């Protein structure tokens, strides 16, 4: 099932890229998709961690929110950088990710890193070590809003 989904995704990817829908290229695309799936299997990447298609339908709900977060913090950091006195207060903190799957945890960590102003510098078990450009960034991360979001995205709760 997962393999089929992967194959389908890959083929869609092909068609989207190609733009030339000659029979020759279409078939070639199909074959290539299959080849890739086989390769993925051989690389042992076609598992839940590597291709969590269960989560895909939740993407539209999570990523727009993330994008908005990114925009906000980007604006904040921009102001900091442009501020003549450069009023930063670099802070290290540890936040706990409540996700159960590695995928979920990874998503959380990446989301933190994606939002300007915070970077996941280390993962130890479920504890994410985070470097924040300003103290407030660290603090409201600790408040755990994003953690809950990600957990929901992961399909927990």
């Amino acid at each position: 099932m997962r393999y089929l989904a992967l194959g389908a995704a890959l083929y869609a990817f092909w068609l989207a890229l190609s733009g030339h829908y000659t029979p020759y290229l279409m078939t070639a695309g199909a074959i290539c998709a299959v080849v890739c799936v086989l390769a993925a299997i051989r690389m042992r990447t076609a598992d839940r961690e590597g291709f969590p298609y269960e989560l895909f339908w939740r993407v539209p709900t999570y990523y727009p929110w993330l994008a908005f977060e990114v925009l906000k913090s980007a604006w904040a950091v921009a102001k900091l950088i442009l501020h003549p006195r450069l009023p930063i207060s670099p802070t290290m903190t540890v936040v706990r990710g409540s996700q159960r799957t590695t995928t979920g945890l990874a998503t959380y960590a990446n989301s933190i890193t994606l939002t300007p102003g915070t970077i996941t510098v280390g993962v130890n078990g479920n504890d994410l070590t985070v470097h924040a450009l300003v103290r407030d960034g660290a603090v409201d991360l600790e408040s755990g809003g994003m953690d809950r979001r990600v957990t929901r995205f992961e399909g927990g709760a």
Partner: protein
Amino acid sequence: MSLDLILRVGTKLILPFILLFALYVQFHGDYGPGGGFQAGVITAGMVVLVGITFGLEAAHRIAPQGLMQFMVPLGVLIYAGTGVAGLILGRNYLDYSVLAHDPAHGHEYGIIFVEAGVLITVAGTMTAIFYAFVERGR
């Protein structure tokens, strides 16, 4: 270990797509920029990524070293051979129009062969170089 959680998840997700993208570039060489070379580079890049993420053994599993070394001349042979085919069939070197009844198709086949040759050589070379460096590092 912790490096590998994020690296692993991220990598696992994109690996198959990288390979597909490589093949896409390979087959669309005559439309956009590209063809064999980028395809080869990207393929090799994928192997490298596997290597640095999951270790050399994993890389060897999908790209055996001996095979890579063999691929280098093989690709060139295919490339040059295709040209010679044109020569043998009485046309100029690299003139593929004779490879099929309809010159246009002939050209297409020719291009396909050539691009395949390039892909094989480039992928082989790059991967072999990567392996060589790893060996040196040891």
